[in-house]
C-alpha cells in the first residue's frame, strides 16, 4: 500500500489531473457576462420593484383591503382608504417605503386581486432624500409600463403556485 502512494506522488499524477481540468476550461467558451451590456435571464418569480396593476379596462385592481399592509413584515406599506364617488372601495393613499421593504413578496401573495406585484425590475436608484417612498401614481405607472411582462411571468409560473 505504502509503495503505491509513493509511486503516485512520484509520477505527479494528481497534479496532472488537476491541470487537465484547468486546461479544459482554458479552451472552453467563457460564461462571464458583461453586465450591464449583457444580462442573465431572471426567474419568473423574481422579486424586484413593486407595481400596482390595472384591469384591461383601465380600472385599478386594488380594492383597499389592506391585507398587504397587514402582512408586510417590514411595515413598508401605508394605505388610506375611502369610498369613491361610485361607491366602490378605493385607496386614497398607497405608499411603499423601499428603504423599509425587504422584498419578501408577502404583499403579492396576500393580494386577493393580484394588484400589488413585484416586477423583475431590480436596477433602480433614487435621486433625492425622500424619493424612496413610492406613491400610488408611481406604482400604477410602473404597472402600466410592465403589465405585459408581469402578466407573462404570472402565467408561466401559474402551474407551480
Amino acid at each position: 500500500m505504502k509503495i503505491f502512494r509513493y509511486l503516485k506522488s512520484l509520477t505527479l499524477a494528481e497534479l496532472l489531473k488537476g491541470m487537465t481540468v484547468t486546461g479544459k476550461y482554458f479552451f472552453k467558451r467563457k460564461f462571464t457576462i458583461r453586465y450591464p451590456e449583457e444580462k442573465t435571464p431572471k426567474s419568473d418569480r423574481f422579486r424586484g420593484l413593486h407595481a400596482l396593476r390595472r384591469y384591461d379596462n383601465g380600472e385599478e385592481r386594488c380594492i383597499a383591503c389592506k391585507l398587504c399592509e397587514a402582512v408586510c413584515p417590514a411595515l413598508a406599506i401605508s394605505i388610506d382608504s375611502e369610498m369613491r364617488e361610485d361607491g366602490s372601495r378605493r385607496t386614497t393613499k398607497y405608499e411603499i417605503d423601499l428603504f423599509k421593504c425587504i422584498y419578501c413578496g408577502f404583499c403579492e401573495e396576500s393580494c386577493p386581486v393580484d394588484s400589488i406585484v413585484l416586477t423583475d425590475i431590480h436596477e433602480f436608484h433614487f435621486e433625492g432624500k425622500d424619493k424612496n417612498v413610492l406613491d400610488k401614481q408611481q406604482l400604477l405607472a410602473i404597472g402600466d409600463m410592465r403589465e405585459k411582462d408581469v402578466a407573462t411571468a404570472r402565467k408561466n409560473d401559474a402551474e407551480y403556485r
Partner: protein
Amino acid sequence: MTETTKITKDAIPENMVRIEIDDKEMIVPRGSMVIEAADKNGISIPRFCYHKKLSIAANCRMCMVDVEKVPKPLPACATPVMPDMKVFTKSKRAIDAQRNVMEFLLINHPLDCPICDQGGECELQDQSMGYGRGVSRYVDSKRVAVDENIGSLIATDMTRCITCTRCVRFLDEITGTDELGGIGRGDRTQIGTAVGRSIDSIMSGNIIDLCPVGALTNKPFRFKARAWELMSAQGVSMHDAIGSNLYYHTRQGKILRTVPKDNESLNEAWISDRDRYGVLGQDAEDRVTAPMVKENGEWKETDWATAMDLAVRKLQANDAKNTAVLAGNQSTNEEYFLLSKLFKALGCANIDYRLGQSDFTQASGLPRMDLNLDEVGNNQQIVLVGSHVGHEQPILAHRIRQAWLKNGSKVSIFNPKQYHFNFETFHHYVGTQIEWVNGLGSLAHCVADLNKVKLEGELGEWINAQATDENLNNLAKALVNKDSNVLFVIGQISNNHPQAGLIKAVVAWLSSQTDGKVYEMATGANAVGAQICGMGSQNSVADILASDSKSFLIYQAENDDFNNAYGAQIKLEDADSVVLMASFADDNMKQVADVILPIGLASEVAGSYFNNFAQMQGFGPAAKLPAETKPGWRVLRVLANMLNVDGFTYDSIDEISSEVALLTVNKGEIDTNIKVKAQKADDLVLFNETTIYDVDMLARRSQPLQDTVHASTDNLNINSVDAKKLGIENAMQIIVNQKVDGDTITQSLFANIDDKVPAGSVNVHKCVGLRTDALNVTLIVGDSV
C-alpha cells in the same frame, strides 16, 4: 377526567342544577340554557343567532353540541339544562354538526371579505377559520339580495346576511319599532324593510354591532379603516346624562366610530345613535384649530402667547363683578372646577351653565334622583312629566319599555305634543304648554281629594284651582294605590318650561302623596358635574344677560344653546369684550367674539363626567387634539397664572380630578313651598322644542345625524283645527310674532299641519330662533309658496 372535586347532591341549592360540560362540573340556575352555562364557565361554543340580550331564535344551528343519551346533536342556545346532564362541545358528533352547518351557511355567503368592512372582526370569518372547509363543494347559483337604502347611519349589503334575525329581534324587542323583517322562505329568505323605508329608531345603530356578518355596517365609517388598525379608548356619552359607557375607535389619533361598552347598570349593551354618531361633529367646518384674534373685524390666526395675552387684557378690561362666564353643559368636571374656582377667586358671581333654562326657581341644587337606573323597572306606575323620553335619554326610554314589556308597568304621560312612544301608555295627557301643566295640577287635585289632604300654601291654592276630571281621577286612584310603586320622571321639556319650578313642586308633592320616587332628568351630558363643580350661580342666565356685565367668557357654548338666542346675541354684540374658549365658532360667535382660544372636546381630553345619578366616571383622551388645540384645563390653568390667581399649580389632570372627587355632592331636592307664577294663554301657545340632534354643539354638527328624519326643520307645526280657522295650508309662509317684555321677536316659517300638536298650540324647533321663556305667540299668514 378533570380533577374538580365532585359536587355532592346536598351542596346544590334548590333552584340550581348540576351539569357537566366537557367533563367540567358546574352548578347553574335551573331553566338556563346550555350556552349560558358554557359562557359563564369560559367554555366557548360557536354561535350566530344567540345574543344574551335578545330572545332565543335558535335558527342558525351553529351552536350544536352533543348531549349524552340524546341521539342527535342539540342547539346549545335552546337546550335548557337538566340535572346531571353531560354535554360535549368538542366531541366528534358536535364538531361534525358544526362543520356541516358552517358549510351550509357559506353556500350563499359571498366571498367579498376583502371589501367588507366587517372583515377582521367578523364572527362568520372567525368561525369559518375554525369550522369551515378549505374549498367549496357547492357549484350551483348563489343567492343575491338587492340592497335597500335604510338611511344615513347604516350601510347594507344584504347578500352577506345569514338570516340570524338578530337585527329583526332587536328592532322588535328592544326598540319596538319592527322595522326589519324576513321575507321569503328557505334559503331565499331576505331581511329587509319590505316597504323601502329607512330605519328611524333612535337606537338603530346597535344592529351594526349585533350583525355577526357584514350585512349591516356603519355607514359614515364605510371603507375608512380595518378593524386591526383601530385603537380603542374608553369614553362616556357626551350627549345625555345617563353617562353611557362606550369605546371610541381611533385610527392615527382620529375617532372614526363609536361602539358600546357593556355596563349592566347603565346602558347594558347598547348606545343610542346620538352617542354613536354625535362625535362625528368633531370635523365640522367651523372647528377652530388655532388661536384667533379679531383685528379690524378680520379674523387672524395667531400663536397661543399672543392670543392669551389678548384674552387676559380683555378679561381685565372690566371689573370681575361685571364679568360673566357662560358655559355649555358638555365639558369635563375638571374644566368646570377650574373655571368656577378661577372666576370665584376673581370675585365674579355671574357664572352659569344652564343656558337653555328659563325658570331658575328650583335650580339651586342637583336634580332630584331617588333611584338608580336599573331600578326603573321596579315601578308599576311610571308618570312622565314633560318628557319626550326617547329623544332626551334614549337609554331611559329603553328601560321604561322593558319595564312595560317585562313587568307590565303602566306608563302615563303629560306632554305638550302627542309623541310616539315604544311602550303602551296608560294615560296620555296632551295639551298646550299651559294646559298640560294645569292637567298635572288636576291630577294633584284628584290625589288630594282621594287622600283627603288639606292643601296649603301657594302651591296648594294653585292645585285647588285646577279642575278635576274623571280620566285623571282614574290615574290618581292607580297612583295612590298602596300596592304599586310609583315613579315620576321629570323630563327636559319640564326643565326648559317657563314654569319649571311649579312643575317640579307639583311632582314633588305628588310623590310625597303617593310614596313615589322622582327621577329628575339633567339637561346636558355633564350638567350634574357643572353643578357639583360650582358652575351654578344664584342668578338666572336671563339675569346675567340683563346685568351690567361687559366682559364675557363663553366656554364651549354658542348662540343656539341659549333659551333666548336672539337676546344673547344682542347682549354679546354690545359687550366690551367677549373671549370664546370653544372647539367650534360659528358665524354668530365669530361676530361677537374678540379672541378665540381653541380647546379640545371631551373626547380629546382626559377628565371625568358626573352622570344623572351623580356617579363620577373618568376617561382618558381618545383622539388627538387637532393642530394647535389645547385641553381646556391647561388653558384655564395658564389663564389663572396670568391673572395672578393663587392655587393654580396643577401639573396633571389627576391632581384636579382628585380635588373634584372630594367635592361634596348634596342629594337633589325639590321644594314644594314655592311662589306660583300663573301663565295665561292669549292666542296661540308656543311649544319651543329642543330636538334630539340639536341638544349640543357636537350633535348639531354631526352630518349623519342631521341627515336622519329626526333632524329639526324650519317648520311651524300646527293642529289642523287651528290651521282651518286661520286659513293655513301646508308649506304656507307664516310669520310668528313672539312678544316678551315689550320686545317682539319675529320669525318667518313654513306651516306644517300636524295633529300631534294639540289645538291652541304651535310647535317649532328651538334653533329657528324663537325664545323658550315666553309662551304666547300670534301668527300672520303670508303667501303660500
